[in-house]
């Protein structure tokens, strides 16, 4: 990592970080892929020279952004005034210059996927303004942030970077009694549980409303509760204050079984990994059980009092569910999972898979990468585990780097009569003369089970053949989660050439196009 800065900020970053000179942009290291922009409003008592310096900082940032090499990312932290002095209430020229700079940084981030904006002000607001600078340390070292503030910075920064790289949890598993409402349904009854009305019911109501919003942002909600299932459905149907109902819930296990088994089976039903789940329960014994039996599941402490639920929700969001960018697929995801449930019901009525697939009227659009689907493609490389042949994780900037180096990047958007799944598969192919090499091939687990992977694979292979490719190469890299595709290439006509450390390398000579089953409507866009 390399940091562009105008003050002493060394203690805020890891030992292997390199730094620019103060205010210097003459050197942009070409070997570092991760660059950081971290400037503060100059500590200066002359307003005009402060404004001038901010103006210069704007051009410096624009210059660095324009000079980024393919594959480099620049994380821009917002410009903040650490020592705000106000001589009058009506002169806001400094604040305007600061927000103007931050607007510029956000605009750059919106138009260039290699640039990412981080709100440093949000971090600072956790500390009282008079603690931001410790003048004793500043005067002996130019260290701009006090040690107290610096101590919290690393965690915050790493968390934001992880978010930008797409490490967001997928599913929140919730208990019911004393978690989503006050009291115990089995004892207090449908009308007796505390939800809505006076405290503590209003605190639980707010928590439920917040969770409904979370589900609209693409987080799957699941319920895991020791209760009689019939009682819970009665409460969902009859208690008008319950906002979080079966509509918002992707899976539920309401029974008296061990919760670790229930969480495992929810993961299986939703086709997600345990490490993408968060478990919320007011009962410390249940939390401990999950921590011990399923250490990959995140288990936050639960607030001791219902009024603590709001701070708890804010922390859930910050620690697990905040995304840098929410895509259309996130907003639609929960609908898609519900459509999947309808598809599964429909599947049971057919005796063979072919009839079932034919009945779905599947339409596949194959698209080249563009500025609209690039964020989703990068997100899929970060999040897809099961149907992923090489599990190479890429940022948008990485993918742009590959395109710059001559790679073809494709994605598919899939619809059927039950709904639109959106962009749910991607392939990256490196080209060299008449040889093509598959770098990445993945499908979201939502669309598996319909042989869409074969249709996608052969469509691209046919297209390559059309473009004069004579030889195709590919490989499979095993992970803890992608065993289901270990023999994908064997099953699709490729020859295993070499195998080392479990990695399998394949080749195929392309001679004539493969006929694709006619029950898919495939369109190249």
């Amino acid at each position, binding site marked *: 990592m390399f940091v562009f800065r105008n003050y002493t900020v060394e*203690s805020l970053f890891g030992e292997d970080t390199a730094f620019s000179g103060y205010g210097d942009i003459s050197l942009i290291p070409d070997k570092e892929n991760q660059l950081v922009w971290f400037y503060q409003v100059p500590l200066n008592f002359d307003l005009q020279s402060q404004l001038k310096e901010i103006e210069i900082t704007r051009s410096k940032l624009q210059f660095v952004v324009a000079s980024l090499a393919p594959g480099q990312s620049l994380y821009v932290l917002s410009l903040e005034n650490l020592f705000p002095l106000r001589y009058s209430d009506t002169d806001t020229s400094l604040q305007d210059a600061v927000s103007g700079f931050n607007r510029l940084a956000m605009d750059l981030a919106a138009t260039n996927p290699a640039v990412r904006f981080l709100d440093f002000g949000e971090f600072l607001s956790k500390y009282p303004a008079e603690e931001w600078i410790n003048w004793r*340390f500043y*005067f*002996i*070292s130019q260290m701009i942030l006090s040690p107290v503030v610096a101590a919290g910075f690393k965690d915050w920064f790493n968390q934001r970077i992880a978010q930008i790289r797409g490490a967001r949890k997928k599913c929140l598993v919730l208990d019911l009694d004393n978690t989503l409402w006050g009291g115990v349904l089995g004892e207090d009854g449908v009308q007796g549980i505390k939800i809505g009305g006076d405290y503590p019911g209003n605190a639980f109501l707010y928590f439920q409303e917040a969770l409904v919003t979370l589900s609209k942002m693409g987080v799957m909600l699941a319920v895991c509760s020791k209760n009689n299932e019939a009682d819970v459905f009665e409460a969902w149907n009859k208690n008008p204050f319950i906002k979080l109902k079966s509509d918002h819930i992707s899976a539920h296990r309401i029974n008296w079984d061990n919760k670790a088994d229930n969480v495992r089976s929810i993961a299986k039903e939703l086709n997600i990994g345990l490490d993408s789940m968060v478990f919320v329960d007011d009962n410390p014994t249940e939390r401990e059980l999950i921590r011990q039996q399923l250490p990959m599941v995140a288990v936050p402490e639960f607030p001791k009092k219902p009024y603590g639920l709001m701070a708890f929700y804010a922390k859930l969001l910050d620690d697990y569910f905040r995304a840098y960018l929410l895509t259309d697929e996130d907003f639609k995801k929960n609908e898609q999972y519900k459509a999947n449930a309808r598809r599964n019901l429909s599947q049971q009525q057919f005796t063979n898979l072919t009839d079932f697939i034919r009945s779905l009227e599947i339409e596949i659009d194959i698209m080249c990468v563009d500025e609209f689907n690039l964020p989703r493609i990068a997100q899929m490389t970060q999040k897809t585990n099961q149907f992923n042949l090489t599990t190479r994780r890429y940022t948008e900037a990485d993918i742009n780097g590959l395109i710059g180096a001559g790679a073809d990047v494709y994605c598919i958007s899939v619809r059927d009569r039950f709904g639109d799944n959106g962009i749910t598969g991607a392939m990256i192919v490196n080209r060299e003369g008449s040889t093509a090499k598959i770098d990445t091939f993945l499908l979201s687990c939502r669309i598996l089970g319909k042989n869409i992977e074969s249709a996608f694979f052969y469509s691209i292979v046919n297209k390559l053949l059309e473009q004069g490719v004579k030889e195709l190469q590919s490989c499979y890299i095993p992970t803890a989660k992608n065993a289901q595709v270990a023999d994908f290439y064997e099953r699709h006509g490729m020859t295993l050439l070499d195998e080392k450390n479990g990695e399998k390398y394949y080749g195929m000579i392309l001679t004539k196009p493969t006929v694709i089953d006619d029950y898919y409507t495939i369109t190249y866009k």
Partner: protein
Amino acid sequence: MDEKILEAMRKVFRSGDIDSTTSQANCETWDSLHHLNFIVELEEAFDMEFEPEEISEMKSFAAVKSIIKNKTK
């Protein structure tokens, strides 16, 4: 007191090779950046604040010890 100082030194300078003869001159990781971290660590351990003049003098185990001793008097 000695052990508390040595502990802070080990934590910040990340070296097992630290004793009462260690100073900025013979400890490779004791640069100006780590020096400040070390002061922060000491302030916390001894619950006191050092003046800038003191901080610039505290560049060996012996000097640190004598300044802390002076302040606790």
